[in-house]
């Protein structure tokens, strides 16, 4: 399961809409081992293409070095599909080199509703996982202190697979 703040999802969808019809891509970094994506980094699509994306290699090194310095890792690697569903293509699977990351796909083919799905891609095997979007306005500390026994506002997207 991927748990991610609504503000970050909104920023990712906004990025995908902005770059539409080209594919948009980026990462969300978080502390190593935390599984918590907290720092959104939109990246350039060096291909500037509606059917392909690639992180610019120089930008990638800069962002990866920055993560190293901050003891972070790419918790989420995202990109958009602009005319097809939010499911990893064979190209995505063949190239996927980060087995510890959540691969988040956004489809912008519908101008009104963004489709968001998350996958693990390990040894060319794709496993879909639920996405739990947490309202960032609910402070987790406040939940335990003042709202004990209640859940923060969440939306669970069911796997269709």
């Amino acid at each position, binding site marked *: 399961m991927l748990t991610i703040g609504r503000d970050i999802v909104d920023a990712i969808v906004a990025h995908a809409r902005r770059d539409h019809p080209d594919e948009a891509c980026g990462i969300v970094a978080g502390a190593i081992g935390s599984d918590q994506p907290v720092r959104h980094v939109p990246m350039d699509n060096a291909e500037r293409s509606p059917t392909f994306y690639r*992180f610019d*290699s120089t930008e*990638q090194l800069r962002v990866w070095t920055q993560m190293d310095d901050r003891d972070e890792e790419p918790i989420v690697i995202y990109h958009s599909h602009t005319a*097809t569903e939010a499911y990893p*293509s064979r190209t995505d699977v063949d*190239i996927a080199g980060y087995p510890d990351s959540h691969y988040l796909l956004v489809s912008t083919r519908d101008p009104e509703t963004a489709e968001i799905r998350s996958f693990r891609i390990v040894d060319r095997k794709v496993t879909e996982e639920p996405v739990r979007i947490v309202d960032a306005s609910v402070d987790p500390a406040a939940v335990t202190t003042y709202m004990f026994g209640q859940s923060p506002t969440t939306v669970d997207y069911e796997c269709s697979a």
Partner: protein
Amino acid sequence: MAIEVRIPTILRSYTGGAKSVEGAGDTLADLLADLDTRHAGLRGRLVTDQGALHRFVNVYINDEDVRFLGALDAKLKDGDTVTVLPAVAGGAFAIAAAAALAGSR
């Protein structure tokens, strides 16, 4: 001649889990051959059977992508740091192409 080579998570099975290893060589090709003597199989993940750098692996010497430095012929000197990062790439092309060929969409 010692060159530090930083290894990404996905390739650490070749280095006994080490995040970085040391190697030697005047060029990137020499360095990878040297590394392969101690970390068998690592070179094969970076270089194709045709002897070119794999398209979806980024290799940097210090801060520069080796594709701008002559790829496998890129020169190395003592104290350089080589960083290996899997490229992040993909896209809908294959699925669209397959669908077009199948005439299903």
